[in-house]
């Protein structure tokens, strides 16, 4: 008797609870239909209204979009919004989320397509796409940096893009950056590269050659006007690259189609070794100092204790608020024109989105326009990749960074770079710390990288 009573109670309570739980879930498709269905009647007044607006999206395909269906606003949820048919889902980092949300609203008004924006941390956009994309829970579009391409494309997470005639309006370097294996994977919108930042109070005219700059730094240090004339972060390959290229070195050679060739490593080429020896001699002379990190570099400069550093547009906010009388100039010429790495920000289409054609159209027809690019620029001022906008730009600092970027080459996005950053950084650290002759450090690094690349194939 007790057993049958237990079972009966159990079934009763379970069915009661299930009924209570299930009803909100069951309502979701209805709500989703309501939102998609309501929009056409408002917006399509200009064109012929479809006879059955609710038939647009079959709502039953997604059983549990509880958060997604109910909240069209961007709310940070533990589980990011996933792509669903008929709605564009965009993942973007916090700095740009407002601009994208506004653009999305305008797009919905003009084209009657709902847009949902999910805010994530910058790096999380990439990392989450790797997990959520293949699981069918990724977005349609992500916004990120071009050097994610190697990782994302080799993992099969991105969809190729065809810009058609619009390609002519983009900075060629930025398009090259978003090209992987001869195929374009992103719509670039911002271009960043480092340039020379100098203190106008200490150095009225920016130096044009590297020797000139060293001379000024040496004099300032001798007169004890500054603690350190020129500062460079220790063991940081990115900021060292202009020196490597200025002396004729390179990291990866190019294949015929312009993409980087992992077989041709240039870190022990004569030019790169000459650059390493230059750094070595500057350390010996006291013109470069070890144990400098980004914070120390910025502090020294802002307090007038250093005259030069290489920095990108991301330092501008800090520089402007500090009140230091700074100027931006091109990186001084060495044996050749130094070429900094160029980083490009842009939009990419997920290979696992459910609206690939719509996403591509959103990029090529809607974002690649003056108005959208202007809105993006105003949200986060940065060197625009959209050439018509760059022509109208009046921020002298940003223009100078853009000019520096024009000399640069896209930061290699090939997956082999993860091995390169590590060993190259190690070599530069060894040179800063004077633990090994410069040429040997570079040769060892190149050897390690070659071994790693060979082993992974």
């Amino acid at each position, binding site marked *: 008797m007790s057993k049958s009573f237990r079972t009966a109670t159990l079934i009763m309570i379970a069915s009661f*609870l299930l009924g209570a*739980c299930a009803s909100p*879930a069951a309502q979701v498709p209805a709500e989703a239909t309501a939102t998609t269905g309501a929009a056409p009647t408002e917006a399509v007044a200009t064109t012929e209204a479809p006879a059955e607006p609710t038939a647009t999206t079959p709502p039953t395909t997604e059983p549990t979009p509880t958060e997604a269906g109910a909240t069209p606003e961007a709310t940070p949820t533990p589980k990011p919004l996933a792509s669903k048919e008929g709605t564009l889902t965009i993942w973007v980092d916090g700095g740009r989320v407002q601009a994208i949300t506004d653009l999305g609203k305008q797009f919905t008004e003009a084209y009657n397509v709902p847009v949902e924006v999910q805010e994530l941390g910058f790096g999380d956009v990439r990392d989450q796409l790797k997990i959520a994309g293949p699981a069918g829970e990724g977005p349609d579009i992500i916004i990120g940096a071009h050097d994610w391409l190697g990782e994302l494309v080799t993992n099969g997470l991105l969809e190729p893009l065809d810009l058609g005639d619009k390609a002519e309006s983009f900075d060629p370097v930025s398009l090259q950056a978003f090209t992987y294996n001869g195929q374009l994977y992103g719509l670039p919108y911002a271009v960043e590269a480092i340039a020379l930042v100098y203190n106008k109070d200490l150095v009225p005219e920016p130096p044009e050659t590297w020797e000139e700059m060293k001379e000024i730094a040496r004099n300032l240090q001798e007169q004890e006007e500054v603690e350190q004339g020129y500062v460079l972060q220790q063991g940081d390959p990115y900021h060292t690259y202009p020196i490597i290229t200025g002396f004729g070195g390179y990291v990866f050679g190019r294949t015929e189609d312009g993409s980087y060739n992992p077989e041709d490593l240039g870190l022990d080429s004569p030019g790169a070794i000459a650059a390493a020896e230059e750094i070595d001699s500057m350390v010996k002379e006291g013109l470069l100092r070890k144990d400098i990190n980004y914070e120390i570099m910025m502090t020294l400069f802002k307090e007038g204790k250093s005259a030069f550093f290489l920095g990108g547009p991301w330092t501008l906010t800090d520089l402007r608020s500090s009140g230091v009388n700074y100027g931006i100039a091109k990186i001084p010429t060495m044996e050749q024109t130094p070429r900094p790495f160029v980083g490009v920000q842009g939009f990419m289409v997920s290979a696992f989105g459910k609206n690939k054609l719509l996403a591509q159209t959103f990029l090529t027809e809607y974002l690649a326009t003056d108005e959208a690019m202007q809105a993006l620029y105003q949200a986060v001022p940065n060197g625009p990749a959209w050439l018509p906008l760059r022509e109208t730009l009046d921020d002298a600092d940003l223009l100078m960074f853009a000019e520096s970027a024009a000399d640069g080459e896209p930061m290699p996005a090939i997956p082999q770079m993860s091995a390169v950053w590590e060993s190259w950084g190690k070599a530069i650290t060894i040179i800063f710390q004077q633990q090994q002759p410069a040429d040997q450090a570079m040769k*060892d690094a190149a050897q390690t990288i070659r071994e790693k690349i060979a082993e992974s194939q």
Partner: protein
Amino acid sequence: MPPKRSVKRLPNLNDQKGGGVIRPTSSSSFRTSFLHMAGLALLDALALWLVYSLLGNGAGTAGILVLVVTGLVNWVFLSDRFYPIRWLTPGLVLMLLLVVYPLVFTVYVAFTNYSDGHILSKQQVVEQLQRRYFQTPDAISYQMTVYRSPEGGFLLFLQDPQGNTYTGTEEQGIQAYPVGGEPPERIGPYQKLSLAGTFQYLTELEKIQVSGEGFQVRITGPNKARQALAKYTYDPDRDLLTDNETGKIYRPVGGSFVDNEGKPLPDAPGFTAVVGLDNFRRVFSDPQIQGPFLRVFLWTVTFAGMTVLLTFSVGLLLALVLNDNRLPLRTLFRSLAIIPYTIPGFISILVWVGLLNPYYGPFSLMIKDLIGVSPDWFSNGTLTKVAILFINTWLGFPYMMLINLGALQSIPMEMYEAAELDGAGRFAKFRYLTLPLLLISVGPLLIGAFAFNFNNFTVIDLVNEGGPPIVGTSTPAGQTDILISYTYRLAFAGGRGADFGLASTIAIFIFLIVASLTAFNFRFTRQLEEVMR
């Protein structure tokens, strides 16, 4: 306060094990039984809801697993036979879920090539390749206008560069539209859509297949289409992939599609595959891994051991001082000493790195004033190790102080009185009473601290990223890398990005090392405990 000797008495509890299980008597109230049932029903309802959503999301295996586990839990709860483990089941289920499952998964990953370039399943790769198209040299691009019928069918109105017009539908394919000229408002039941009005149907248009003679029409935008052909065909029965453009045939081998010469399909992602012992073979044969292993291992043990020794000594010293009733303002000092424990580690580590900077760090400048030289904290291997141990001691001593304070309270005062009667001095009391008694209760925590520091990635990586580098070798290991940070460098800074398979393999080895060290430690402390009895 009554003396507590809980640690020593714990084993006695086991004596009751043989004494029979207390079963519910028939008089157990209706209310208890009802509450049990309600709780179980709630659990079942939650589980069923979870299964429902898991199945809906296509996670079938996980759904069935939850169902099976819920069934077992119900069985255990409803059967009298399992009464003894009834209240253990929640713990057991959680342990399976949170401990055993990740372990099993890690071991599984160690046998696969799961890494960048191989994260998709084979089916996903095949689906992606089947979406690729190629164009024959004479392929035509069309201007396209989309028409839609009230039933939701689509018709494409296509104009080639010569001005010839065609209509295309999924059912009837491409047909010439002899009228020519501009697209009309209606074609049969189909109504013309404006360019802006086409956008909302793009996702549906993406799916429709319109074929002509010897080609397919691929929609590339809201008003553009072109002739194209599927690039790959996959034959599931023979498990072969054919490139329709070149006629080459690819077969899946070791996580990639390869041709007859073993060359992988260009521009295609690989997939996750079981590769057997490949990762284990790499661990044993790769000079980059083998070379510095002993050196890294020795430093790992030194680091963990020294950290425990230093934090314990400092913590004990402070605990002894703060435990003395004669000390004024004890509470204040105690609170001050706990501060390092309350600041998040990654903040205090970075602050210390700044304080120690040889040129600008106040701490280093102070040393410079004292001895005339600023120590080369981050360029000299030995000094970096000293700095790491110093910082880690600073981070860890409050914890040791807290547990020692607690343990000191539990030593009965009578023992000290007896020792005094026997003529023991202050040092003798510490050496023969306090320390051994402390070690009994604190011993397991010291082992825990050792195991934790064995894998203390945060400190190592934040202080100097494992550096300074070992000069003249091709290994990624730095002079202060411990096994776990070394694994990270091997697995995530390799030639092609992250390699989870290799990382899991090395993690298994680290687990074996830590497990055997811990087992050894436990045996050692047990001996200690027995001596004290």
